[in-house]
């Protein structure tokens, strides 16, 4: 068998690289960085985050500081969400669009004050985002790329609060009731750390930011990392890599830029309507294109699906169906839940391994018999209706599931589709998202 590609040693490294290698981490290339994909194995790290706590080094992410009298106006023009709703020390999630409605990046905006914001951006987009933002700022608004000065850790899981309480000392009073999407500037064992109640797992957690350019010599990334791991040991904390980060966010059906969002995919196609305020005073870049799309309706949508037959869906795999399936989906649509609705839809999806295996073997035999080549597919009326944007075995749910960008006609829960895995068409079913019940801290 072919072994997976190993990193080539030419990428950027976070301050924790040596420590991670010493811990036995398996490294991978991600967006120009050498990052741990796992320390132990993806499944145990994923389960630790769902049942106890996990600690991620996400220092590859970018941070851009924006300040000036016109900062809010400038950011309002860049972001689709309405930042006027932000108050000091609160955070908002927003896509940032091009004129045609395609997405530049999806970001978090941390408001310090009316004239000072921190934008947290995806690792692969830092250079692009800085350029885009600078092009679209008032001349007196100042943007500074501080990504290289900042490390970022993510502490996630039901025990993350217990661990933060131990570490934060007297600061815990301020953090204890901090609700999701809030932040505070704290001091942990003499180190200045910005702590937000945010995360990318669909559960409770904290993200910690530290400026290591200004830190005292003794205040290093390693020190903060070890403080968290040492104090978290009694609660079952595990260091976790990008492998688990991806399976966790996929269980929560959170979008990943480059997969569910891109310059070719709009926030409406991605199901992010609640973060797009078309009526926002002053408008925003991309609004006209999005108004048009909203009026006409999207032609394709990101939809969640679970495998019915045996097989693991992955990014890029084609989604096919017969015209009969599409017609049947149209009928299902009237009765199904509207996944574009603003309210949170929670689905707890558990499939016992035994039941799934039994059903899936039979389905795969049936599917295998119907599909062999592209010509056969066309003869049987199979057409391509989209592709898988993200797919995986999901460890907590214990099922193979994913997200796909597909023809809107097929995107309602209950629709039958087939995922082309190597040479077979394997049956799958559209289901509502998220795949697990999200568990954010609502606050007091």
């Amino acid at each position, binding site marked *: *068998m*072919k*072994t*997976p590609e190993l990193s080539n040693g030419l990428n950027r490294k976070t301050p924790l690289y040596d420590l991670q290698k010493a811990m036995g981490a*398996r490294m991978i290339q991600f967006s120009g960085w050498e990052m741990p*994909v*796992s320390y132990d*194995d*993806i*499944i145990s790290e994923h389960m630790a985050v769902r049942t106890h706590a996990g600690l991620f080094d996400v220092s590859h992410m970018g941070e851009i500081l924006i300040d000036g009298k016109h900062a809010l106006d400038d950011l309002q023009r860049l972001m689709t969400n309405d930042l006027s709703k932000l108050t000091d020390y609160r955070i908002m999630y927003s896509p940032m669009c091009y004129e045609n409605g395609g997405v530049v990046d999806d970001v978090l905006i941390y408001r310090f004050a009316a004239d000072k914001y921190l934008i947290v951006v995806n690792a692969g987009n830092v250079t692009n985002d800085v350029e885009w933002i600078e092009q679209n700022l008032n001349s007196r608004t100042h943007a500074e790329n501080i990504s290289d000065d900042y490390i970022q850790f993510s502490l996630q899981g039901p025990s993350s609060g217990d661990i933060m309480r131990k570490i934060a000392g007297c600061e815990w009073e301020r953090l204890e009731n901090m609700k999701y999407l809030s932040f505070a500037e704290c001091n942990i064992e003499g180190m200045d750390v910005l702590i937000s109640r945010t995360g990318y797992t669909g559960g409770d957690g904290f993200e910690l930011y530290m400026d290591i350019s200004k830190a005292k010599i003794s205040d290093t990334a390693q020190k903060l990392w070890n403080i968290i791991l040492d104090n978290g040991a009694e609660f079952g904390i595990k260091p976790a890599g990008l*492998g688990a980060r991806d*399976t966790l966010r996929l269980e929560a059906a959170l979008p990943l830029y480059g997969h569910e969002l891109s310059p070719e995919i709009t926030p409406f196609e991605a199901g992010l309507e609640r973060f797009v305020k078309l009526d926002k005073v002053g408008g925003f870049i991309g609004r006209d294109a999005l108004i048009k799309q909203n009026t006409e309706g999207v032609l394709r949508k990101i939809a969640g699906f679970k495998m019915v037959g*045996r*097989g*693991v869906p*992955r990014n890029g795999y084609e989604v096919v169906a017969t015209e009969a399936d599409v017609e049947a989906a149209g009928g299902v649509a009237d009765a199904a839940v509207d996944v574009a609705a603003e309210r949170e839809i929670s689905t707890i999806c558990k499939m016992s*391994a*035994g039941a799934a*295996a039994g059903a899936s*073997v039979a389905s795969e035999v049936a599917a295998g018999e119907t599909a062999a080549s592209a010509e056969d597919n066309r003869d049987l009326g199979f057409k391509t209706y989209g592709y898988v944007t993200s797919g*995986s*075995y999901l*460890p907590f749910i214990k099922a*193979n599931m994913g997200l796909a960008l597909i023809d809107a006609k097929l995107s309602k829960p209950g629709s039958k589709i087939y995922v082309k895995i*190597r040479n077979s068409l394997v049956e799958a079913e559209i289901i509502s998202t998220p795949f697990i019940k999200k568990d954010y801290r609502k606050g007091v």
Partner: protein
Amino acid sequence: MEVLKELLYSKDHEWVKIDSGKAWIGITDFAQEELGSIVYVEGPKVGDNLSAGDELGVVESVKAASDIYSPVSGRVIEVNAVLEEKPELINEDPYGSWIAVLNIDNDISIGDLMNADEYEKYCDSL
């Protein structure tokens, strides 16, 4: 990294046990360690005639799908159905988790396969 003395090994990290005209095939400890948690195994079909180097099946970890190749030529007589329900057995016990059994010719050429020492040295060189 574990290597069993009585087995033969391919450059693609498959192991093969040859006994009484049959060959049991699986993937090595090196391979399962590189792959990480295995979540899916697809073997060949009983009755398939394979030449050495032909695709034997697929092993998938959380992150990636990896093709496996038959180190020997022969006809598939048995496929390990337990691995369909419990693919993680390959991680736990790679040499005890055979993927397929082939009926092989008696004059089978095993020239391209390595013994345990050679395979160990080969892995160290990677």
